[in-house]
């Protein structure tokens, strides 16, 4: 069984694609409310880890528990229903749908009514749809997107698309939020805003967050604990301070001087 009240417990997870071991013996436990960073050079297997956690890939070996439940035979949407939602490194919004619909879709499973109720427009249907609308607008407000609720997602500026992805993930009401390079492509000011936003939602929704990020400043400032991957192996973990001074980590950033890598 999974340990206690861990939101996430990945045990000895390994995945091979043909002869290539993309991630080997990965272990990670996340407790409620934790802020954890997952870093490593390009190609280290970070996104692969996310894809295994969320059910896109099935691990070759090892087990993953979300909220104490083994996700081995689960489809991605069943795993999401266990209380975990994610964003994507390359933005994957529903581009042809409105900003509002994008957020509502994230909350799909939480607003319940039957098809018959929808066709007959019962009270239950109206109440559920109003709740969905209300919650979605509230989320958009947090990200300053409420005035753009009717836009097609594809027409938002890049930075707003990134924020919308987070809003959409939050509308699934996760206990653990996975952010895959949320600051990719953002400028310094936007990155600082994002840091503040992540802190805000962390507090406001009382969730745990696991973040992959190349922006070391952001990771070091945000996270309580950091796991470092290189070539699919966990080479270090600890507090930002410990990780920053770990020689193995510095070396992993490929001989780059520590300052250049931002460590």
């Amino acid at each position, binding site marked *: 069984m999974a340990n206690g009240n861990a939101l996430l417990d990945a045990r000895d997870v390994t995945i091979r694609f043909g002869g290539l071991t993309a991630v080997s013996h990965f272990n990670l436990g996340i407790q409620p409310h934790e802020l954890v960073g997952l870093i490593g050079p390009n190609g280290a297997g970070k996104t692969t880890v996310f894809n295994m956690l*969320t059910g896109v890939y099935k691990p070759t070996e090892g087990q993953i528990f979300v909220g104490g439940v083994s996700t081995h035979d689960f489809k991605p*949407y069943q795993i*999401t229903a266990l209380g975990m*939602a994610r964003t994507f490194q390359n933005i994957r919004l*529903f581009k*042809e749908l409105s900003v509002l619909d994008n957020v509502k879709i994230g909350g*799909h*499973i939480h607003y319940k009514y039957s*098809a018959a109720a929808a066709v007959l427009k019962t009270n239950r249907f109206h109440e559920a749809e109003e709740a969905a609308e209300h919650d979605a607008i509230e989320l958009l407000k947090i990200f300053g997107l409420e005035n753009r609720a009717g836009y097609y997602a594809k027409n938002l500026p890049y930075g707003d698309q990134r924020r919308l992805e987070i809003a959409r993930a939050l509308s699934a009401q996760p206990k653990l939020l996975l952010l895959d390079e949320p600051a990719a492509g953002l400028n310094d000011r936007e990155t600082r805003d994002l840091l503040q936003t992540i802190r805000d939602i962390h507090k406001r929704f009382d969730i745990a967050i696991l973040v992959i990020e190349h922006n070391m400043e952001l990771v070091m400032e945000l996270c309580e604990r950091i796991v470092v991957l290189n070539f699919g192996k966990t080479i270090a973990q600890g507090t930002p301070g410990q990780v920053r001074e770990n020689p193995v980590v510095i070396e992993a950033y490929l001989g780059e001087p520590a300052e250049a890598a931002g460590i």
Partner: protein
Amino acid sequence: MQEILQNLLNGIAVGAIYALIALGYTMVYGILKLINFAHGDVFMLGSFVGFYVGGYAARHLHTTGGALGWGYAGLVMLVAMVVCGLFGFLNERIAYRPLRNSPRIASLITAIGVSFLLEYGGQFVFGADPKRFPTLVAPHYIAFGGLSVTNYQIIVLVVAVIFMGLLQYIIYGTKFGRAMRAVSFNFETASLMGIPTDRVISMTFIIGSMLAAVAGILFGLSYPTINPLMGIMPGLKAFIAAVLGGIGNVPGAVVGGLIIGIIESFIGGSPLSGYKDAIAFIILIAILLFRPSGLFGKYQAEKV
């Protein structure tokens, strides 16, 4: 002028039936990128359910040669919708779902197989001889400014519009529609956002098959001779309609259906009437050559 209007009117009535069938093609394609070639035969199944249920009702209500009337007609349609919906659900579960991660050609060939199963299984079960569809409502002509309109044409149009409106509402006004749009945009992302993709796919098949059942009943009402192979031609025409409108595009299927119906009607009233079907296929070839994405479809580069 009068003749043009008359042809237009007849064309719209036929086109509405094509449109209802085309919706099923386009919805399934939008979500699974699968052309469900069995869909035209689901339409046939709908007609046959109408034939048996309507026939049963007619025998037990002792309507000697008369019509069943509105209430029973509605009931017949409802039963046909339920049976076809169930068939669509099982069809996807049994025949397509196990192949979802196989190359797309595998599902396509399976669809053709299901189509043959229905056509020749239908001949086996229902018999190959043409059957007379029961009279659901009494026919009468309405003279309308020199045009001759039957009440059937009006019924077809009204019922088709009601169901299209209902579909539009489901797609744009309910969470099921949002989920369908999300799944059709990106299957994997939708699943990761917690959308139960399997259920959405089942629902798409159920709705599409129900619309085909409605079309089957409306067809039986308008052209009361039915047989197990009757789904082939309307199925293909509806497929052409879906391609014409831009396959995967819901309003496109309706417009495509109407256009095909109207073109057919005009050709039917001209010396070229013998080439009616050939011309429909020429249209298909022309679209595929000159505008493969159809009227409303967007050109999409294949993802590499």
